[in-house]
């Protein structure tokens, strides 16, 4: 230690904001002396750097009062301090800390994605049967309005057509052993589609009826929708969508543009759950048709007719449904006996096909591109 070279600093003791002019002595520790009296002594290995503007060295001590500070502006003293206090930057920001943050963030992301992929569908499968029907019906009421808005159109109620429709649905219901309340309607819309809503509401759009050549085709479609009802797929879908949005939202927090990521991520997951549910509903339809002694193949034919050939499409991660031709293949595989009686007579089929003609030319729905059955 060079005597005479006085090391001056400003000391803030952490009890008040009075700036005390002190001298520093490098003894057993960093001694802080005011007017010749040592007022505090900081062990060298406990002295840490605190934030400060570039030209000032500001120090704190891990074992002193949390806000006690030493401010050193003279370069020689700063040099002496860095020479004595070797742990100035311990615990501060470092490359190691950044890597740790990166590692644990990615680990958290991976576990959240795994949870979304395996945990949520499992939870939905277990939860859906436990929820009372009244809840599902309540949700159905809300969704119904949205659906009506999207597809447009009114409920068709040509008397004879309605009778034929009811007969067909009842047959399918009995064969499928549906034990949940069910409500099926034909709705006027150009969109060739059919859908099942929460609470056992099944809608057949007239556009699909127009494209159908025989009762078995429509029967297959309805059986498929009844499958969704029986499996309570709408409710499961709601639990899944809610769960994944929550998890993915949790993951991305407030990164700007997070909502777009959220949307894409959710679509990917939803589509994947959805394909599984569609396959299950197809299997249900095949089973019902077999019980009625009818072939499920016409359903597959109608599918392909409506969606077009799959030859130049590829199943993408975003497709909510399996490929039509794969589905046709599944339906054609069943070559068991099909000696059951016709589901509807020729007259009934004709009445069903024109069930919507009693309506004044309603507002045509927009051409739907997302096939939803």
């Amino acid at each position, binding site marked *: 230690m060079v005597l005479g070279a006085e090391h001056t600093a400003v000391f803030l003791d952490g009890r008040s904001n009075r700036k005390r002019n002190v001298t520093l002595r490098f003894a057993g520790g960093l001694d802080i002396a005011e007017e010749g009296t040592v007022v505090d002594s900081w062990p060298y290995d406990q002295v840490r750097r605190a934030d400060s503007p570039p030209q000032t060295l500001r120090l704190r001590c891990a074992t002193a009062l949390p806000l006690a500070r030493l401010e050193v502006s003279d370069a020689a003293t700063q040099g002496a301090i860095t020479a004595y206090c070797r742990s100035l930057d311990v615990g501060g920001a470092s490359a190691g800390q950044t890597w740790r943050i990166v590692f644990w963030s990615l680990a958290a992301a991976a576990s959240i994605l795994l949870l979304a992929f395996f945990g949520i569908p499992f939870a939905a499968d277990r939860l859906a049967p436990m929820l009372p029907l009244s809840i599902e019906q309540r949700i159905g009421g809300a969704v119904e309005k949205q659906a009506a808005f999207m597809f447009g159109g009114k409920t068709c109620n040509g008397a004879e057509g309605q009778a034929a429709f009811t007969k067909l649905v009842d047959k399918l219901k009995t064969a499928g052993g549906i034990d949940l309340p069910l409500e099926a309607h034909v709705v006027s819309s150009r969109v060739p589609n059919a859908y099942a809503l929460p609470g056992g509401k099944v809608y057949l759009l007239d556009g699909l009826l127009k494209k159908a050549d025989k009762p078995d085709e429509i029967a297959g479609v309805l059986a498929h929708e009844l499958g969704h009802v029986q499996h309570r797929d709408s409710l499961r879908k709601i639990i899944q969508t809610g769960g994944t949005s929550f998890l993915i939202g949790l993951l991305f927090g407030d*990164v700007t543009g997070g909502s777009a990521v959220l949307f894409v991520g959710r679509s990917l997951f939803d589509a994947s759950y959805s394909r599984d549910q569609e396959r299950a509903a197809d299997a249900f339809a095949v089973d019902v048709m077999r019980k009625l002694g009818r072939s499920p193949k016409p359903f597959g034919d109608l599918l392909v007719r409506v969606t077009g050939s799959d030859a130049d499409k590829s199943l993408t991660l975003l497709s909510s449904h399996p490929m039509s031709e794969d589905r046709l293949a599944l339906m054609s595989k069943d070559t068991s006996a099909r000696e059951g009686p016709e589901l509807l007579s020729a007259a009934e089929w004709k009445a069903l096909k024109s069930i919507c003609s009693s309506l004044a030319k309603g507002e045509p729905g927009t051409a739907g591109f997302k096939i939803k059955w």
Partner: protein
Amino acid sequence: MNETVSLPFDVSPVPPPIPGVNRIAFSGRRADFRRLVIRGTALELVTVGFYRFWLATDMRRHLWSNTAVDGDAAEYTGTGKELLIGFLFALAILAPIYLAYFLVGLEAERIKAFASLPLGVFFFLFAQFAIYRARRYRLTRTVWRGVRFWMTGSGISYAWRAGLWVLFAIVTIGFAAPWAKAALERYKMRHTAYGDLQGRFEGTGWSLFKQTWWMWLLLWPSFLILIPVPFILAAIRATEWRWWTSGIRIGDVGFTCKLNDSALIGLYWKVIGWSVLLFTGLGAWFGVVFAIGYQSVSASVSEEQKFIMATQKLPVLFALGFGYILVALAVGVVIRIYLTRDVWQRVVESITVQNLAAADNVKAQGHLVSALGEGFADSLDIAGF
């Protein structure tokens, strides 16, 4: 208006010192902040967003430690880890609330019409609570001359006041907004202290109203032609900064802010310019990606279906998503540089402190509070920087 854009803060002559009057100096280098924000944003991307806690902390540390009153720089003592823990706590509390929200929403469907209103009100109040608590966290991490700022008061009580005042402001189609701002600021400052120096707020709604009413009147019709909007908004903002700063008292220490009406205009336009540039780039990128995706669909299907199929291709989706995220992050960088750092610099450099001697020999008081409020604010997407 152009001559007002280049601001004179680094060429302004040093005024002769007036006894009892101190300027606030900002010594942060723009390049340092830019590097900090770009690095932090890149890490945000890599860590799927989790780095935001450390980025916010680093930004605050930079701004605080480069802001000096009477030659003594402030210090921010918060850490990213505290913010992360606050966020996790908030999550634990919010998760059941979201579940309840979902169930209540179902129930509310039956009553229809005003079903969503009470829930919206609840979340608004909750957001106010979070804002108050987040301010409290930041304040208790703010240290000057070895003594911290701190805050009492209750977030719940603040949330009710905020709710009622905002309701009042809405009922009066905005005319009461200055009084709402003044009242809420009074509540916040009344519960703010630096050591044993008690804070208060002396700005009044009337003085803010007097200064800004004509700007608001100009603002609404100017939305029709858009161009004047940033000018007027920048002027309103500058006026509010002046009014707010000049109203603050900490003990007998007072502040005056001489921020020019035009001081922020250039910054607003720079943000707009960068955003236009970035979104144009994004549009071009989308166009190219779509064109390539569209070409690769060798289908005999309708144009519409071709379009849909192009958007469903995985590489196309990733290219679009990636471009979007990059641009969103870049806009974030621009906003942080111009609207956080540059606004900070211009505002603090325009402030003079009166009677700073009244803040000598202040005794340390107050305790640290957790970052739970910041966590709530983060979860609700209302986090300040």
